[in-house]
């Protein structure tokens, strides 16, 4: 018999999808049985109380959580988010129910041994409930009490080679796509740079001194599997400078139906024969492709790296060989005030591990210097760029305005000449001018 009646939550289980309510009930039962005989360090009925307080919130139509606080582990200003409930007598199991953010490994590669270790630790010292993964990318351990925080941190940092993730006004845990480990579209090694910057910027990750949160995300190609262009203050998107490589024989094989388009991804239904004109050439956003007399050609100068043709015919079309990444800045995905996409700052930069990504670090650090000085409290980089202007950003990072910064001619002319940049300045001889121009 459940500790609390939960008719409203039970109803959620009746839908066609797997329900988190069923998962929580299962976990509650597992804790109650405690078949491993663990010396559980937080209340055994924590999950039952969690269900109870959620039911009450549904009934009242308002939350019973309070979030934020002074809890954390020594020396770290992030990684732990204090959470308390405002009905501790009714639900003592979740009176303290802090969240721990754990830095996910680059590319989210785990060994089963690691996952078992993590779950065993969390069953023992926490609620046993995890979120794999939160929207920042971290492993989220949901719910424990204050005395357990240092214990969990000690175990993770000493025996599991594991650090906490970022929260608060910090650099957040850098996130990347699976990259060259499994993806032939990856234009650079996302995991290598993600790991390198995580290690390099430990101080920024753990000791908050930014005006607000700051996120890096690394996408190996413009497919943007980690959505860096929409969700990170600084987005690193793989690209190439030379031509898309075309394998003419493979193009013929796609046209002839010997190779399935999209890697066979839409094989669940008969869509008819593959039509290269309609499905590839006709959908190119810049119209830079042609298929004539059995030959596919691409005007690469006009290509905007939308990736559609490569995704449809991956064996016939491949990314170029002269690879690097583009840097975009200022994206955010807030609940209020609307989402904002990143703006292109650096069209192409080499991703060079040999000099420890110095060119990229130079851009990062100059942006931080500007934002830390000029940013208002709780102002994201994208908002500062909007407030002071893209031109001011360019001055701060020492990059000259270039055509790639402009979406299209005459639509966003944010670059204004200054007097000292113009020959003769703003002064003119009005009499001389009037000789040729009447009033």
């Amino acid at each position, binding site marked *: 018999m459940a500790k609390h009646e939960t008719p409203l939550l039970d109803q959620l289980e009746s839908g066609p999808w797997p329900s988190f309510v069923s998962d929580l009930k299962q976990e509650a039962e597992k804790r109650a049985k405690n078949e491993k005989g663990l010396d559980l360090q937080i209340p055994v009925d924590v999950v039952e109380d969690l269900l109870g307080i959620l039911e009450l919130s549904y009934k009242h139509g308002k939350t019973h959580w309070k*979030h*934020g*606080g*002074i*809890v*954390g582990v020594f*020396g770290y*200003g*992030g990684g*732990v*988010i*204090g959470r*308390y409930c405002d009905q501790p007598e009714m639900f003592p199991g979740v009176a303290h129910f802090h*969240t721990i953010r754990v830095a996910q490994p680059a590319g989210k590669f785990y060994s089963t041994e690691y996952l078992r270790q993590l779950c065993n630790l969390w069953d023992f010292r926490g609620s046993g409930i995890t979120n794999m993964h939160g929207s920042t990318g971290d492993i989220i351990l949901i719910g424990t009490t*204050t005395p357990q925080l240092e214990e969990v941190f000690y175990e993770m940092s000493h025996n599991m080679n594991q650090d906490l993730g970022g*929260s*608060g*006004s*910090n650099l957040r845990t850098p996130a990347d796509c699976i990259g060259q480990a499994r993806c032939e579209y990856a234009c650079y090694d996302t995991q290598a740079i993600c790991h390198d910057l995580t290690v390099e910027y430990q*101080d920024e990750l753990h*000791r*908050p*001194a*930014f*005006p*607000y*949160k700051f996120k890096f995300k690394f996408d190996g190609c413009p497919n943007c599997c980690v959505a860096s262009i929409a969700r990170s203050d600084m987005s690193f998107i793989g690209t190439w400078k030379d031509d898309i490589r075309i394998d003419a024989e493979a193009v013929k094989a796609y046209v002839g139906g010997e190779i399935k388009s999209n890697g066979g991804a839409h094989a669940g239904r008969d869509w008819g024969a593959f039509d290269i004109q309609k499905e590839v050439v006709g959908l190119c956003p810049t119209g830079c492709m042609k298929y004539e007399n059995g030959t596919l050609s691409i005007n690469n100068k006009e290509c905007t790296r939308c990736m559609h043709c490569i995704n449809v015919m991956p064996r016939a079309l491949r990314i170029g060989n002269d690879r690097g990444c583009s840097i975009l800045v200022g994206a955010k995905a807030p609940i209020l005030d609307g989402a904002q996409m990143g703006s292109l700052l650096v069209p192409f930069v080499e991703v060079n591990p040999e000099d420890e990504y110095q060119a990229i670090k130079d851009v990062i650090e100059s942006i931080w*210097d500007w934002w*830390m*000085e000029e940013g208002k*409290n*709780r102002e994201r980089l994208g908002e500062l760029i909007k407030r002071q202007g893209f031109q001011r950003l360019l001055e701060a990072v020492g990059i000259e305005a270039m055509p790639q910064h402009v979406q299209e001619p005459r639509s966003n002319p944010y670059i204004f000449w200054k007097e000292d940049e113009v020959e003769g300045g703003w002064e003119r001889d009005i009499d001389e001018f009037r000789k040729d121009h009447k009033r």
Partner: protein
Amino acid sequence: MEQAEAQDLVVEGLKKKLKTKSKFYFNDIAKILEMKPRLAKKFVNKMVQDGVLEYWSSGSTSMYGLPGTGKQAAAEHED
């Protein structure tokens, strides 16, 4: 500036404002120290390490306070 001098400035500066608020943004502290944020951070980190300041975090935003001040300190130490 020496650490001790910076600490005195910050503690005094924050105490003055305690009547109206108990949690402060990093930039408030950098302003008290009249330093650029990157430089101020070194002093502030040391103050946290020495227990002169403590972190407060909402999860999305971080602030700093003097230990034991504010409503939350009392609420969280109640048990």
